[in-house]
């Protein structure tokens, strides 16, 4: 099947080249049959890559170790769901996933718009096919998932233990869906600029895909944060790591675009800005893929070292996208002029513009901080990096303004608002915010953290605005129909999905930032070395190291890993809170000769088995690092004794080592955290994406027709009057 897989990739590469050429030829020469042929080529690409991906998945599920990527990323003992996910744990598998998703989404958008945007579609097809060419080129010439081994090993090396987490099955596909979906508005923006058709339709066509990209990328980001918090032993959900930042940048500019596109839809303004934003977002999506797949920046998420070819190819693509985007926007500035000007500074347009500036500023901060190591290396020769405090210094004030705007924007009408009305609609939310401020200042220690206090206050304001909007909307709906409040509420949301989906997102974002502000500003964290029986106090909780634990995981007759752990008893004011059992899992290295029969267990991958007691108001979180010196000393001694012993004896010695750890435990180092309101980070994220789903869900045609009927009738009356005048 590897031969078939390789042939499919070569064919896919040829098909993408054909699609680029035929789309451009059809577009330039106005020959629709060539445009349709290029579209069919994209459908064919999807079919080819689907079969290729299926072949790879089957190889993983069947433990076909003749495939090099299967042998190096899976094993017979890998659980079946992780075998399925292992396909995209490798460089070549993830590139194939990227190309497959790209071909699927491209086919979908081209199919849905097969009778629309006839001038733009050929160029958009060429751009999408161009991305396809790039990724299939990498798959054919550099990173083929269908490379085979001349000597087939009896077993594989297995999936990296750090990747053995349920999120592995959904986190990468979500991120990649987001990245690939962002290439669609990019492609249509390029098409619109080339064809000089920058009117309403391309925005309308790509809006839903942009929202879908934002939705999937956002879910991917939050799943990654949750994974990091629950699996990695450092104790946080966001480390400003380059790979994390890579996904955040297009999400921020995509969020900005989703707001500013409304200004273009309604007022014909900000065309240069919107074109630039969508082109930048598409480029940043490729930058994100590059950072994940190249390993060019040091990252806790860097599981690959791509080599020069991939890095060089991505750099070339990013340069081409950047320069091409700048050229297109500059050369088309004559058709990108705004049709209107801002009527008033107190208008929703102004608020959206301000929101865009804040989001783009955040993106710039993230970009600068992420690439600072490369910039500093280029300038000074030293690869210096900036840490979380640097990011917080700039991001926190910007986030505060953003949340404030989240509250202000929805209640300011388009075009202009009067101060009298503004005062009226802001009165209640301002009172709520003031009460929140005073209560927090007087009854908590929030006064010690002014930025956090500010964030809580503006979040309270934003939540009050959203609640007020839902209440007033429901009441208006009740006045217009005979429905009771719940029915009116559901009906209102159903008929105004975009508006109220947006408000739900605002609620989610405000809740999320409350969680972020509380858990980062008021977190208590301590790294402490304890012997059995010793205790420590953190954040008002007492942590007692009750006893050591150790287990050996056996899978298919072999030792999968050794766990050294601890029982930690948590109490507060003498009352029992929880027993937590953190551990460190050691997976054996295959290099028995180099590291010894016992030592090899401590030279392979190791994972933190974090344990926490999560609650509505706080999380108590513990990770453990056993004494490395003790482990080395004991394992070295055993290796010396057992180097010529039979395998069974060596395995018994491993069991003996686990028992020895329990009976003669060394001191262990614990990281202990007490973080308030972390749960609300996840709840906020769920609310946010629920709002995204509401906004994404299409309104029924009947509702659309009803919605426009009244306005159409009124305008028709006006039209009749003007026609009567002219005749």
């Amino acid at each position, binding site marked *: 099947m590897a031969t078939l897989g390789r042939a499919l990739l070569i064919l896919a590469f040829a098909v993408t080249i054909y699609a680029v050429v035929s789309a451009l030829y059809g577009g330039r020469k106005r020959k629709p049959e060539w445009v349709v042929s290029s579209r069919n080529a994209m459908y064919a690409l999807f079919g080819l890559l689907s079969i290729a991906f299926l072949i790879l998945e089957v190889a993983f599920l069947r433990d076909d170790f003749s495939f090099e990527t299967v042998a190096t990323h899976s094993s017979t003992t890998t659980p079946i769901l992780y075998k399925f996910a292992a396909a995209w744990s490798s460089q070549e598998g993830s590139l194939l996933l990227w190309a497959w998703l790209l071909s699927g989404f491209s086919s979908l958008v081209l199919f849905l718009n097969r009778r629309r945007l*006839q001038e733009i579609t050929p160029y958009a097809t060429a751009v999408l096919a161009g991305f396809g060419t790039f990724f299939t080129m990498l798959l054919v010439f550099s990173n083929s998932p269908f490379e085979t081994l001349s000597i087939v090993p009896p077993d594989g090396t297995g999936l990296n233990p750090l990747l053995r987490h349920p999120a592995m099955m959904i986190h990468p596909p979500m991120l990649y869906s987001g990245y690939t979906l962002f290439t669609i508005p990019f492609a249509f923006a390029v098409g619109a600029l080339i064809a000089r058709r920058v009117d309403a339709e391309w925005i309308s066509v790509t809006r839903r895909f942009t929202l879908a990209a934002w939705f999937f990328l956002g879910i991917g980001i939050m799943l990654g944060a949750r994974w990091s918090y629950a699996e990695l032993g450092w104790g946080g959900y966001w480390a400003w790591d380059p790979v994390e930042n890579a996904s955040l940048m297009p999400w921020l500019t995509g969020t900005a675009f989703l707001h500013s596109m409304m200004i273009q839809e309604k007022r014909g303004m900000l065309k240069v800005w919107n074109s630039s934003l969508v082109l930048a977002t598409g480029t940043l999506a490729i930058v994100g893929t590059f950072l994940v797949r190249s390993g060019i920046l040091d990252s806790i998420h860097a599981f690959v070292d791509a080599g020069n070819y991939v890095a060089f190819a991505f750099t070339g693509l990013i340069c081409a996208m950047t320069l091409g985007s700048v050229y297109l926007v500059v050369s088309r500035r004559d058709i990108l002029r705004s049709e209107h000007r801002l009527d008033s500074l107190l208008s929703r347009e102004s608020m959206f513009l301000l929101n865009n500036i804040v989001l783009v500023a955040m993106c710039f901060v993230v970009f600068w901080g992420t690439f600072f190591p490369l910039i500093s290396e280029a300038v000074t020769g030293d690869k210096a990096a900036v840490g979380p405090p640097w990011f917080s210094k700039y991001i926190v004030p910007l986030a505060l303004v953003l949340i404030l705007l989240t509250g202000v924007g929805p209640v300011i009408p388009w075009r202009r608002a009067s101060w009298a009305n503004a005062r009226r609609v802001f009165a209640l939310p301002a009172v709520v915010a003031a009460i929140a401020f005073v209560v927090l200042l007087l009854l908590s220690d929030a006064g010690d953290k002014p930025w956090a206090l500010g964030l809580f206050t503006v979040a309270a304001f934003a939540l009050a605005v959203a609640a007020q909007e839902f209440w007033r909307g429901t009441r208006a709906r009740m006045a217009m129909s005979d429905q009771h409040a719940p029915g009116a509420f559901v009906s209102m949301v159903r008929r105004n999905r975009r508006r109220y989906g947006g408000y739900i997102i605002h609620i989610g974002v405000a809740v999320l930032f409350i969680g972020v502000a509380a858990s980062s500003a008021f977190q208590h964290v301590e790294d402490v070395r304890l012997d059995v029986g010793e205790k420590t106090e953190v954040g008002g909780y007492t942590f007692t190291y009750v006893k050591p634990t150790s287990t050996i995981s056996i899978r298919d007759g072999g030792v999968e890993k050794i766990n050294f752990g601890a029982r930690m008893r948590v109490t507060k004011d003498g009352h029992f809170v929880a027993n937590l059992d953190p551990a460190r899992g050691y997976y054996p290295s295959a290099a028995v000769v180099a590291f010894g029969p016992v030592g090899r267990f401590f030279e392979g991958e190791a994972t933190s088995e974090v344990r926490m007691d999560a609650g509505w108001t706080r999380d108590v979180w513990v990770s453990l690092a056993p004494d490395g010196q003790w482990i080395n000393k004991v394992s070295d001694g055993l290796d010396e004794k057992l180097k010529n012993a039979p395998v069974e004896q060596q395995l018994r010695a491993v069991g003996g080592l686990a028992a020895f750890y329990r009976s003669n435990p060394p001191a262990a180092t614990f990281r202990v955290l007490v973080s308030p309101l972390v749960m609300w980070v996840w709840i906020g994220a769920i609310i946010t994406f629920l709002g995204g789903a509401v906004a994404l869900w299409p309104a029924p045609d009947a509702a659309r027709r009803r919605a426009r009927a009244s306005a159409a*009738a009124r305008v028709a009356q006006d039209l009749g009057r003007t026609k009567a005048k002219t005749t």
Partner: protein
Amino acid sequence: MDVLAPLLIILVLGAVVWLISAPLRAKATGRELPADVRDAQRRRDLEIERDQKYAEIRELEMDLRTGKLSDADYRETDRALRAEAVDILHALDELGVPTEAQRDADAGVPPVSDAAPVADEPAPEAAVAQSRNTPDA
């Protein structure tokens, strides 16, 4: 497998070539892009702008009913929006009745954009009157 793989490859290659070449083979009976494709595109843009303008008018009503606008501001903005909508309808009129080819080109396209609809009760002038009766409008 040695025989099967080349056979499958040939089969897939044939299917791809068949799919991609279908529009080229059908060219003799296929349709051309309408000569006045720019007009068709312009019509689509105007129709979308028209639908968005209708949505704006409805949103404005909603803003009035939820107390974001005074009556005076509502009337002024509503008048401006309706004037803009009339301009768009005039522009559509100027493009004339769509030709058969343009209708073909637009076949299968939903008649309205996916711009957000607002509430469904029309209440043209009654929106203002009704809002006056609500406590905070």
